């Protein structure tokens, strides 16, 4: 019976649950999309890794000594080219091939904006993970294959000539084939395959070796014996290495590792997105709670009647929970389907996504979304259901409006008290650099605001009433209504408080961080022109020669960004990274020498770092080079920080001599000749660097712009993800208005009958929505600013930049949110027949 009542209630008043359904649907859609994206990515990458490597029985791969000083700066050693032939010659080995990669750039669709891709050196063999969809694998110098999606994107066909840039310069090539990898087009974002003949050009093969060697055994091979022999070859090869070594993996181990890497990449992405999705769900929970609280209050008489005729409190509780369950299941199911649909659409429509992922949603993900949606809804409806069951039968006879609960004075006082103490703790914590006080203060401030919400709304409404009354009677009635049900207004605004707080906090703290970083970089001294790769790959010798010879540049300094590490702890357990530079050209780098003098025999250390590590001029620092050689060096100069080089430097020639290692050049720094045409010089250098993949001409301003762009992108992305929370809050306002209108039908009918026009009625509802959204936006923004200001003050030593623009956008967005949220309710209310309204009992 009660089941029937619950079901009919939901069916008879679907609009009552509109906001709840929208909130749950949106939050679960987000979650579902996040999980589907993860599943699709993970499953595609995994199955590709496994499918592409299915012929591999054994693999030889390089590894880094985890405990070597600069482990995180080093890449694993490549397998020397001749080792492949030795492995292939082992008894029982059918075939052994190497695989290597390097950055390449394909010409873009637009001139001067190249398309980055990964160049793979492949050998035509069943072991090769790539397949050919059209044409053939490259076999000779100047032949390439391009993944089929990229080929389509860039309009490249088999037979087309194409000029690509590689790490060692330009390569005039011809497309001989279109490739696929496993089930998808490309292994990375875009693949370019070349033959071993171009190995040196694309991947520096002769000196760097293969990234990995793949082995296929004969069907009748003695696998143990063959493996032992390959092990021995790997050990021999490792003998000649200064650091790291080679490991031998079985095919299954390799496939597991590749699949694992794919899975962990995808799950990292999944976790990041889920954080935002669950945040959205929590805000949705507030709205669900608010809706059920309101609905239960509106139905007090119904529950009282049920209780009066003998329904038990438990039965009433169950009936309300059942309603919540219906809403939860329906909304979560819609959300699950929508989220999956969105990802399917993205894969189908966006080439960059479709390139490497196929749609997939695991059953467990469906379960996770459904359970999350249902649990959040049921938990949110818990207290309202309990309240419904506490309805006393006599209330069926009461005349008082059960939907309006007076604002508790004690609650207001407690909330205001918590706000005051929290704000004080935050301010003091910020002043004395105490993170605990700041954390506790922030939490207390937040809780205080939520507790004091109704009181704050009431106060604000009283302040606003007079000015709004002067505007129009509709506005006055709106503010009076917001005040009358201040508890509900506050509860509705809370969702927005949290959403806006998150956005403002992220943008203002992130913006401060961005401006701080940009400022610091701007203050660093630097060369006029520098040439480097962002991945730290060595510069081609030809490139170095060409840049050095450019007219209009003086003193081109050669830099190796990390030649070794000094035995000093510079914090976080890191050792002092040491760079090799032309000490003769040190001045070119624009580094100030604060104390001592740079010379080609000593170590120059940034003063701040030296002070931090407790060393002074004349101290001896032991430097361990990357190849393990060690040398004691005297600190002969204390310098400022520079943008172009690490904070500790020795002469590059000295480093080569002491380490016995032919350390490559990783970047160049130069200054313009006094009479040079700077634009011309820049253009000349650019003409050279554009021939090389991954190598860029950087000037300080460009770098600052890049940092700024990067931060802005990050901030926009985070704001967009958090924006979902604000949209959910919008549904909350919409829902509250719809419920309030249903509840005030008679009042609205009365207003209409005494001459309120439809326009005035709409205005009244719009104003109420805007008041609610402004309360939420203002409180959220103030909280976000206060807390981020306090934190940034301590973290960045006061370098807080007020995000005026973002703030203005947020406030405008708040008003717009209110207006948008009121559209449907206002339309509904205005459409209402005044006569029917006053007849409604």
């Amino acid at each position, binding site marked *: 019976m009660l089941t029937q009542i619950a079901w009919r209630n939901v069916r008879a008043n679907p609009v009552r649950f509109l906001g709840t359904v929208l909130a749950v649907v949106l939050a679960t859609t987000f979650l579902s999309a996040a999980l589907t994206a993860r599943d699709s990515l993970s499953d595609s990458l995994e199955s590709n890794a496994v499918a592409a490597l299915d012929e591999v029985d054994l693999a030889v791969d390089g590894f880094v000594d985890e405990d070597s000083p600069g482990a995180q700066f080093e890449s694993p050693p490549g397998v020397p080219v001749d080792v492949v032939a030795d492995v292939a010659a082992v008894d029982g080995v059918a075939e052994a091939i190497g695989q290597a990669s390097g950055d390449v750039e394909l010409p873009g669709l637009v001139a001067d904006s190249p398309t980055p891709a990964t160049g793979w050196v492949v050998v035509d063999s069943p072991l090769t993970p790539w397949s050919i969809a059209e044409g053939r694998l490259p076999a000779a110098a100047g032949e390439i294959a391009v993944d089929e999606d990229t080929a389509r994107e860039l309009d490249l066909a088999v037979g087309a000539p194409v000029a690509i840039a590689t790490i060692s310069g330009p390569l005039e090539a011809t497309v001989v084939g279109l490739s696929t990898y496993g089930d998808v087009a490309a292994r990375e974002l875009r693949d370019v395959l070349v033959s071993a003949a171009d190995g040196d050009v694309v991947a520096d093969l002769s000196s760097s070796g293969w990234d990995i060697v793949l082995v296929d055994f004969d069907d009748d091979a003695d696998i143990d014996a063959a493996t032992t022999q390959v092990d021995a070859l790997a050990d021999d090869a490792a003998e000649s290495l200064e650091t790291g070594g080679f490991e031998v993996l079985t095919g299954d181990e390799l496939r597991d590792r590749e699949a694992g890497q794919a899975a962990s990449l995808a799950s990292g992405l999944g976790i990041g997105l889920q954080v935002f999705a669950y945040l959205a769900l929590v805000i949705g929970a507030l709205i669900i709670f608010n809706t059920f609280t309101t609905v239960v209050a509106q139905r007090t008489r119904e529950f009282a009647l049920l209780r009066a005729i003998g329904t038990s409190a438990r039965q009433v509780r169950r009936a309300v929970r059942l309603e919540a369950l219906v809403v939860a299941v329906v909304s979560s199911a819609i959300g699950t389907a929508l989220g999956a649909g969105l990802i399917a659409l993205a894969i189908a429509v966006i080439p960059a996504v479709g390139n490497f992922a196929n749609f997939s949603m695991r059953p467990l993900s469906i379960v996770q979304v459904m359970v999350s949606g249902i649990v959040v809804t049921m938990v949110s409806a818990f207290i309202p259901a309990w309240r419904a069951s506490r309805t006393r039968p006599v209330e069926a006879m009461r005349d008082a*409006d059960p939907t309006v609960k007076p604002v508790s004075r004690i609650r207001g006082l407690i909330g205001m008290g918590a706000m005051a103490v929290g704000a004080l703790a935050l301010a003091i914590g910020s002043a004395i650099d105490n993170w605990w006080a700041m954390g506790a203060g922030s939490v207390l401030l937040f809780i205080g605001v939520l507790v004091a919400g109704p009181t704050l709304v009431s106060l604000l409404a009283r302040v606003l009433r007079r000015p709004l009354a002067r505007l*129009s*009677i509709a506005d006055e*009635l709106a503010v*009076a*209504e917001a*005040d*009358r049900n201040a508890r509900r207004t506050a509860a509705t605004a809370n969702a927005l408080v949290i959403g806006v707080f998150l956005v403002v906090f992220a943008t203002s703290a992130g913006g401060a961080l961005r401006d701080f970083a940009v400022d610091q970089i701007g203050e660093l001294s630097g060369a006029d022109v520098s040439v480097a790769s962002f991945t730290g790959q060595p510069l081609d010798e030809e490139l170095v020669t060409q840049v050095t010879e450019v007219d209009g540049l003086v003193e081109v300094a050669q830099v190796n960004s990390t030649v070794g590490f000094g035995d000093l702890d510079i914090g976080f357990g890191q050792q002092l990274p040491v760079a090799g530079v032309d000490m003769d050209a040190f001045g070119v780098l624009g580094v100030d020498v604060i104390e001592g003098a740079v010379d080609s025999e000593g170590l120059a250390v940034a003063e701040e770092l030296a002070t931090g590590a407790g060393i002074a001029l004349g101290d001896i620092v032991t430097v361990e080079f990357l190849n393990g050689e060690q040398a004691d060096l005297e600190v002969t100069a204390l310098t400022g920080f520079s943008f172009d080089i690490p904070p500790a430097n020795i002469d590059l020639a000295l480093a080569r001599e002491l380490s016995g290692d032919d350390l490559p050049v990783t970047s160049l720094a130069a200054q313009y000749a006094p009479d040079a045409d700077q634009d011309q010089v820049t253009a000349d250098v650019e003409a050279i660097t554009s021939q090389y993949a991954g190598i860029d001409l950087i000037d300080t301003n460009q770098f600052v712009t890049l940092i700024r762009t990067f931060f802005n992108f990050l901030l926009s992305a985070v704001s967009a993800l958090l924006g979902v929370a604000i949209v959910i809050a919008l549904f909350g306002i919409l829902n509250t208005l719809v419920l309030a209108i249903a509840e005030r039908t*008679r*009042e609205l009918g*009365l*207003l*209409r*009958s*005494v*001459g*309120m*026009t*439809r326009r*005035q009625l709409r205005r009244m509802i719009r104003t109420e929505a805007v008041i609610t959204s402004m309360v939420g936006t203002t409180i959220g923004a103030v909280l976000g600013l206060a807390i981020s200001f306090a934190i940034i003050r301590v973290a960045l030593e006061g370098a807080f930049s007020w995000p005026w623009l973002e703030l203005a956008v947020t406030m405008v967005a708040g008003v717009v949110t209110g207006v948008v949220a009121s559209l449907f309710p206002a339309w509904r209310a205005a459409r209402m027949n*005044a*006569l029917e309204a*006053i007849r409604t009992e």
Partner: protein
Amino acid sequence: MSSAPAAPAPAASDVDFAARCYDLTKVYGGDGNDVVAVDDVTLGFPRATFTAVMGPSGSGKSTLMHCIAGLDTPTSGRVFIGDREITGLGDADLTRLRRDRLGFVFQAFNLVPVLTARENLVLPAKLGGDEPEAAWVDEVVGVLGLGDRLDHRPSELSGGQQQRVAVGRALITRPDLVLADEPTGNLDSQSSDAVMSFLADAVERLGQSVVMVTHDPWAASYSSNVVFLRDGAVEGELAAPTTDGVLDKMKNLGA
């Protein structure tokens, strides 16, 4: 049966009536189970008089009033407020008409809970964007006799006080016609007396025109003329009614 109000001259320029209707019919439903709520009624309510409309439940008295007030659309016939025909007007015009030329008193829920008594009183004028005429407001307030309770919210007033404020609100725009729908339906006899006296005062002292729907013979005795309805049609009238006279008439109607 007095004939003047029941058979008004059909000229549109006739301004002796606060409201008139001609051949007014309202049919509810459709698909073969029509209910004729008002059946071909022609009536006039003279200015500065107090008319009561009576009849048993289902006699169509409320529907008649709603049609005259422009709250409901008649199926056929014409309705005039003063010299203005309201049949066929759109929502915006009807709203303005209700605001400026009609006053309403309902059985219950007459006041906006968030406004004080005084604010409720001047609400129609405020909705029209006008400042109410101060002298007139003072006069209405004087007759209202609410004293210092004017600045209280409706929830702090008694039922009778609330209804008096509602009557005051209905008068505030000096409407052509005040329509009252069972204004004492929810009140005890003492409060009812205060509200009815106030309505009668409005007619006598302020010269307003009032039409009241009621089924309470005692309330009807405050009026100057009673119109009886039965099955949607006019069944007779009674001038200068007394409670007993009305009761007799009702018995004859078989109510």
